[in-house]
């Protein structure tokens, strides 16, 4: 007789589409963001195929411009920003704080519907002709000159922003008010800390992009001239408003992944993290300082050199807390009991690739150097190292780690290791050549390019093909595992944490009564004494 758990507690479409259970909502998100990932990846494929040859011979220039625009819009707003918070955060945060659900379950469901509506708007914009402004919608091109469906796409982004805002709001209230007895802030898992910091950014930053894209739509549709230089407007004002959100947005994309890595590193060394409070506070530091660096996107637009220096300085400072995390993760390995299961492989990949990605960000923060590499493939390589080598690997690592908890099934570990390695190698082959192409001077968003860049582009496209296959394999075996995978026990990894105390998959209410916590949730008792140095 099968025990009742959240998956079989209620059948039929209505029980899923009208659910209030955070775990079911997490799965609704999982399905929709996977769909958008495939769509965004399809656009990327076309871009990379075009770039195999210097001439623009596969697609027309206009179509190509629409491809990279839609790739950016879909991947940023409909995959990267929701991914870990909406899937893993939604599923795990109530369990990790010892609660039965998030503070506002119906608002949680609403946020998924808002996400879907925003996504539909964007797909409509894509299918009815496409947008070619770049995901950054810079004015005056987007308000006065672009062809295509800028208003629809801008509204799609506007609507989806509220999904993000409501998720962040839910997480903040949950962490403040729903922690189980004994679960003080400094006993919380680092996954919760990183999502709390992410939520701060979500609620403070997202409204600004919302009003900004709304103004773009208004300017285009109603001829209100806010950014239009012909009416005395300032196109650079758009850039300031846009990046005021979009820079912190990249921390929305990476902080949850960092939380995942903290969890994986502890579970697969069977140790509590080295420097817990430093890692916890570094998440807050990144969130706060991250709001103060947006001007580093505008160095060459002619803003005051003194303003530029302030932004440059702070852009260097914001790297320090990230470095602290990397060092603490590495130190946790020391004297751990290290296992090389696939989640840990993803964590290793993350640490290496995020280090490279983060350090190349410093190249861009250095004003004199940014002049040369701004708007080139150097920037493209930098942010893909963070977002793909970092955030996506964190997401996949987390999916693998918590898959048995979410589905109650095991996945084939051999295939998982294989695809992790394939993703790692495909990724590096795709994006490392782009650093070189960027410094050589190849600008971004180029449909055709001078012949001397071809070798690097061919290498990059070859890597992208490998990467694509690497992503398809988990899609297949995860689907397989949901129907035919071996069943899992409560704690298949021998890991510590409130989520591992309850069944896999969990019952709908998570806990029948609130767990009373007596110590940090990631302490492993070792035969030797606990050692605290310095």
């Amino acid at each position, binding site marked *: 007789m099968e025990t009742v758990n959240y998956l079989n507690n209620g059948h039929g479409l209505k029980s899923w589409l009208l659910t209030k259970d955070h775990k079911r909502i997490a799965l609704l998100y999982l399905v929709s963001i996977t769909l958008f990932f495939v769509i965004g990846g399809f656009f990327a494929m076309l871009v990379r195929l075009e770039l195999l040859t210097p001439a623009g011979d596969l697609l027309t220039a206009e179509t190509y411009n629409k491809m990279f625009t839609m790739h950016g819009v879909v991947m940023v707003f409909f995959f990267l920003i929701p991914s870990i918070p909406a899937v893993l955060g939604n599923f795990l945060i109530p369990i990790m704080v010892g609660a039965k659900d998030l503070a506002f379950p119906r608002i949680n469901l609403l946020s998924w519907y808002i996400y879907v509506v925003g996504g539909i708007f964007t797909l409509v914009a894509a299918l009815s002709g496409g947008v070619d402004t770049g995901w950054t919608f810079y004015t005056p091109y987007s308000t006065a*000159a672009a062809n295509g469906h800028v208003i629809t796409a801008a509204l799609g982004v506007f609507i989806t922003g509220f999904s993000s805002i409501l998720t962040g709001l839910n997480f903040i209230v949950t962490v403040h008010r729903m922690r189980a007895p004994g679960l003080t802030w400094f006993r919380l898992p680092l996954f919760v800390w990183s999502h709390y910091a992410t939520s701060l950014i979500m609620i403070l930053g997202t409204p600004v992009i919302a009003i900004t894209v709304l103004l773009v739509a208004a300017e285009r549709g109603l001829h209100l001239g806010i950014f239009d230089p012909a009416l005395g407007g300032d196109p650079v004002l758009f850039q300031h408003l846009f990046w005021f959100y979009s820079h912190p947005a990249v921390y929305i994309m990476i902080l949850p992944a960092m939380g995942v890595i903290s969890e994986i590193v502890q579970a697969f060394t069977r140790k509590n993290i080295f420097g817990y409070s430093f890692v916890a506070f570094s998440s807050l530091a990144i969130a706060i300082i991250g709001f103060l660096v947006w001007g580093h996107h505008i160095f060459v637009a*002619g803003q005051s050199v003194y303003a530029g220096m302030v932004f440059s300085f702070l852009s260097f400072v914001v790297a320090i807390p990230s470095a602290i995390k990397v060092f603490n993760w590495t130190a946790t390995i020391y004297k751990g009991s290290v296992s090389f299961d696939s989640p840990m492989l993803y964590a290793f990949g993350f640490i290496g690739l995020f280090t490279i990605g983060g350090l190349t960000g410093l190249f861009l923060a250095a004003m004199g150097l940014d002049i040369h590499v701004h708007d080139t493939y150097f920037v493209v390589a930098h942010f893909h190292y963070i977002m793909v080598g970092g955030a996506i690997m964190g997401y996949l690592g987390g999916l693998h780690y918590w898959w048995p908890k979410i589905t109650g099934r095991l996945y084939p570990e051999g295939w998982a290791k294989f695809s992790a390695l394939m993703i790692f190698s495909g990724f590096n082959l795709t994006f490392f050549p782009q650093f070189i192409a960027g410094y*050589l001077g190849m600008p971004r968003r180029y449909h055709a390019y001078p012949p001397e860049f071809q070798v690097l582009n061919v290498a990059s496209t070859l890597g992208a093909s490998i990467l694509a296959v690497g992503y398809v394999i988990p899609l297949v075996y995860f689907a397989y595992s949901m129907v035919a995978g071996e069943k899992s026990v409560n704690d298949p990894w021998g890991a510590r944490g409130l989520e591992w105390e309850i069944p896999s998959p969990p019952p709908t209410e998570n806990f029948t009564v609130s767990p009373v916590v007596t110590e940090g949730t990631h302490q492993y008792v070792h035969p030797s004494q606990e050692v605290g140095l310095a």
Partner: protein
Amino acid sequence: MFTNFPFFPEQASAQAAQVDGLYFFMVAVTAFFSLLIATVLVITAIYHRRRHEDEVGVQIHGSLALELLWTVIPFFITMVMFTWGAKVFFDQYRPPAGAMEITIVGKQWMWKAQHFDGMREINELHVPVGRPVKLMMGSEDVLHSFYIPAFRVKADVIPGRYNVLWFTATKPGKYHLFCAEYCGTKHSGMIGWIYAMDPTEFQTWLNGGPRSDSPAAAGEKLFNDLVCVSCHRDDAQARGPQLKGLFGHTVRLQGGATVTADESYIRESIVNPQAKIVDGFAPIMPTFQGMVTEEQVLQLIAYIRSLGALAPPPPASPAGAAPQVPGKD
């Protein structure tokens, strides 16, 4: 595909070496720390690999000393990078006096250049080696960006204002020019070539070839065609400020503020004259926005620059006098 396969761009300007120096330092730091982390990670992990199923790690809280160490050292390194980067930028952002001036207008999807003596170029720019060159850049339509990788210089070209870019070419040759800010369908076609030449060859090139009026001469023609001279004149009929010797000097505005009469001020005075009213004059100048292109504005500016020393001010005209329909002078 494999015949021309560069890994690193040429250094063809005085600032290229500066930028590359910083770049190599940062590559070294990046390589060092990436390899360090990767090596420590892999070696430590393999050394401490799990040997039996029940094994658990040693619980180590942390170390304040280590945390401080790996906070302070990265901070120091990043501050070196910041200072170095700021210095390279600071040295670069202000053009030296006496630089050779060229005006650039970007429009979808081409670059138009005009030298000080009238020589025009499209999607090409000839410059002498060894002499600072200053580009005054405007846009006719949307954002563009003027980028010469071999010189390591780039500046956005923004509609509604001017941006300046300067460089000193050091090596004769032919170098890529790219538009580096997405501007629509043919963005990747908005490219060209920079030809750096020996000074004598450059002079030969400048002297030969078809030319149009120098920007200043074209500006003078416009000044008369648009009848600016009906108000900006040096007799008692003048209703507008004197323009002789104006350029580069301080102007006193109504309300006491002052402003330097540079290119941006003159452009604003033409397209949005009500924004700043000169002290002692009535706000009666009509706007010429929409009647002149960005190129023509640059020509008018060149003309105003070419005017000689300041003449004695005329007696003040009656304030608030309605402008008469401009007739022939």
